C-alpha cells in the first residue's frame, strides 16, 4: 500500500479515536445523570411513602413509623453522632469497620475467583471429572453458609499466621460463596472457544497449555467476568455473614449484630450500617465492571 493511503488510514483512525472519546464522555455524563436521578427518585419514594402512610395511618403492606422507616435525616444525622458516649462519630466507626470487612471480602473474592477458575479449568479438560464432581460442587452451595461457618473457623484459624487470625477464616467463608459462580462460568467459557480456532491451534501443534492460555482463556473472559460481577457482591455478603459466628467485632457483620439488639430503640444505626454495607458491595461490583471494560476486547455487539 502506498504511504499516502497509510496516512489516510491513520488520519481516519485518530479521527475515530476523537469521536469515541467524545461520545464516551457524553455516555458517561448521561449515565451519571441517570444514576443520580434514580437515587433521588428512590429517596423521594422512601420519604413519600413515609409521609403518606404516617399521615393516613395505613398499615398495608407495612406501617410507617420511627422504628420501621426512620426518616432519612434521622439516618444521616446518626452518621454524624457518636455511636457511643465519648467515641468518634458513627460514620468514622463504620468506615473503619467497612475497611476491615472489605479486606476480608477482597481476600475471599481473590481466593474464590482463583480457586473457582482453576476448578473450571480442570473440569473443562475432563468430561469424567465434570460428571463426577459437578453434582458435589452444586451441592456445596445448598448448604447454608451459617451452618459451615463455625467449622471453617475452627479448622482454618489454627493454620493461619498471627496477622491473619480471625479475618482469614472469614475470607475463606467468603471464598466459599464466590468460587461457585466463577467455577461454573469458567467451565462454560473455556468450552465456548470456537472449534475452528482449536483446529487452527492443532495445525500449529500447540500444547494443551498454549491452547488454554491463547484461546480458551481469552474466549472465557466474557463468561468469567459475568461470574466475577456476581462474586463481587457475594464476597461482601459472605464476609459479613462470616463475621457473625466468628464473633468478630471489627467488621460490618459485628456492627450489624450489635445494632440489631438496639433496633427498637435506635433503628437509624442499623439502617446507617446497611447503607454502608450496600455501598461496599456496589464499590466491589464497580471495580469488577471497570476491570472488565479494560480487559475484554470484543466485537461491540458480542459484548455481554
Amino acid at each position, binding site marked *: *500500500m502506498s504511504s499516502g493511503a497509510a496516512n489516510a488510514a491513520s488520519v481516519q483512525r485518530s479521527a475515530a479515536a476523537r469521536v469515541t472519546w467524545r461520545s464516551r464522555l457524553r455516555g458517561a455524563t448521561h449515565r451519571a445523570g441517570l444514576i443520580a436521578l434514580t437515587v433521588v427518585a428512590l429517596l423521594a419514594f422512601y420519604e413519600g411513602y413515609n409521609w403518606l402512610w404516617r399521615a393516613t395511618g395505613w398499615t398495608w403492606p407495612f406501617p410507617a413509623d420511627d422504628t420501621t422507616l426512620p426518616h432519612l435525616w434521622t439516618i444521616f444525622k446518626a452518621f454524624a453522632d457518636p455511636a457511643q458516649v465519648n467515641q468518634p462519630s458513627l460514620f468514622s466507626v463504620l468506615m473503619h469497620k467497612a475497611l476491615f470487612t472489605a479486606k476480608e471480602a477482597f481476600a475471599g473474592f481473590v481466593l474464590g475467583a482463583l480457586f473457582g477458575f482453576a476448578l473450571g479449568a480442570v473440569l473443562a479438560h475432563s468430561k469424567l471429572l465434570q460428571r463426577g464432581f459437578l453434582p458435589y460442587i452444586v451441592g456445596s452451595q445448598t448448604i447454608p453458609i451459617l451452618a459451615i461457618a463455625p467449622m471453617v473457623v475452627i479448622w482454618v484459624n489454627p493454620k493461619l499466621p498471627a496477622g491473619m487470625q480471625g479475618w482469614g477464616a472469614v475470607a475463606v467463608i467468603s471464598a466459599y460463596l464466590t468460587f461457585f459462580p466463577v467455577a461454573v462460568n469458567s467451565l462454560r467459557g473455556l468450552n465456548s472457544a470456537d472449534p475452528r480456532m482449536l483446529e487452527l491451534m492443532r495445525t500449529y*501443534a500447540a500444547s494443551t497449555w498454549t491452547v488454554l492460555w491463547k484461546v480458551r482463556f481469552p474466549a472465557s473472559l466474557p463468561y468469567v467476568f459475568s461470574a466475577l460481577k456476581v462474586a463481587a457482591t457475594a464476597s461482601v455478603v459472605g464476609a459479613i455473614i462470616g463475621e457473625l459466628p466468628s464473633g468478630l467485632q471489627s467488621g460490618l457483620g459485628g456492627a450489624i449484630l450489635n445494632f440489631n439488639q438496639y433496633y427498637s430503640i435506635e433503628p437509624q444505626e442499623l439502617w446507617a450500617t446497611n447503607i454502608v454495607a450496600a455501598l461496599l458491595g456496589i464499590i466491589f461490583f464497580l471495580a469488577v465492571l471497570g476491570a472488565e471494560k479494560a480487559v475484554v476486547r470484543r466485537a461491540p455487539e458480542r459484548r455481554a
Partner: protein
Amino acid sequence: MTEPTTVVSVSGVTKTFPRGNVTALQDINLDLGAGEFISLIGPSGCGKSTLLRVIGDLVEPTSGSVTINGKSAHQARTDRDYGIVFQDAVLFDWRTVSKNIELPLEMLGWDRPKRRTRVAEMLALVELTGFGDHHPWQLSGGMQQRVSIARALAFEPALLLMDEPFGALDEMTRERLNLELLSIWQQLQSTVVFVTHSISEAVFLSTRVVVMSPRPGRIAGIVDIDLPGPRSVETREDPRFFELVTEVRELLRMRGEHLLPEEEAAVAGEDA
C-alpha cells in the same frame, strides 16, 4: 514432466463418517510434486474439505495413508510443515490484526522484533498496511480473509492448504487476490492445495485441477493446466484458457448424472 520430489502423497485414502454412515472419500490416490499448485473442485459435499483435512492430519482416514515430505501426516503437523486457510477467516477477536498474524510466529518461538518485522511485511503483502492495530471486527469480510491468508503465509510454510479462501469475496477482490496468491506462490516456491467451487478460478491458478465427484467422494479426473507463461489478466482471454475451462466443466458434468438437481444447477452456473 521430469519427476519432481513428491511433497504430498495420498494413497488409498477412504474416509467414512460413522454418523449418518457417509463415505466422504473413497480410495483417493494423489501425488503432489514440489512447487505444484493443485486445485480440488467438485460439487458441494464431494469431500474436498475432508481430503484437505486428512492431508493436514485434522481428520483420521478410515483406511489408507498420507505422507508429507516422506513423513506421516501426523509428524508433518507436529513439525508445522504446512499453513492452512479455512473457508472463514477464523480470526481471534481479542487480538489486533498484527497480533493475529503473529500467532504462528509466537508458536514457533520467534522473538518480538523478528515477529514485528515479518508482520509488517505480511501486512504490506496483503495490502493492509495501516490496519495492524485494528481489531478483526473493524474490517470487512474480504480484509479479514486477507489477514487469515497473511497469518498462514507468515512463517513461509512450504505447503499451503487453502479451503475456499476466496469463497466469500466479490469477483473483483477475488481476481486481484488470485493474482496476489500466484505471485506469493512464485516468490515462496511453495506447494499449494487449493479448494474452490469456481472452475475458472481453478484453471487460472493451478498447474493441475483435480475434479471430484460425490457419494462416495472420488477423483473423477485430473486436468493438466498447460497455460503458457506466468498467468496474468490476459490469461483469462487466452483461447486455451476457455478450452481448459470447458474440459473441467465436461468432467464435472459427466460425473454429475447422480447429482441432485440443485447441485447440477450450482455446477452449471459456477463460472458464469
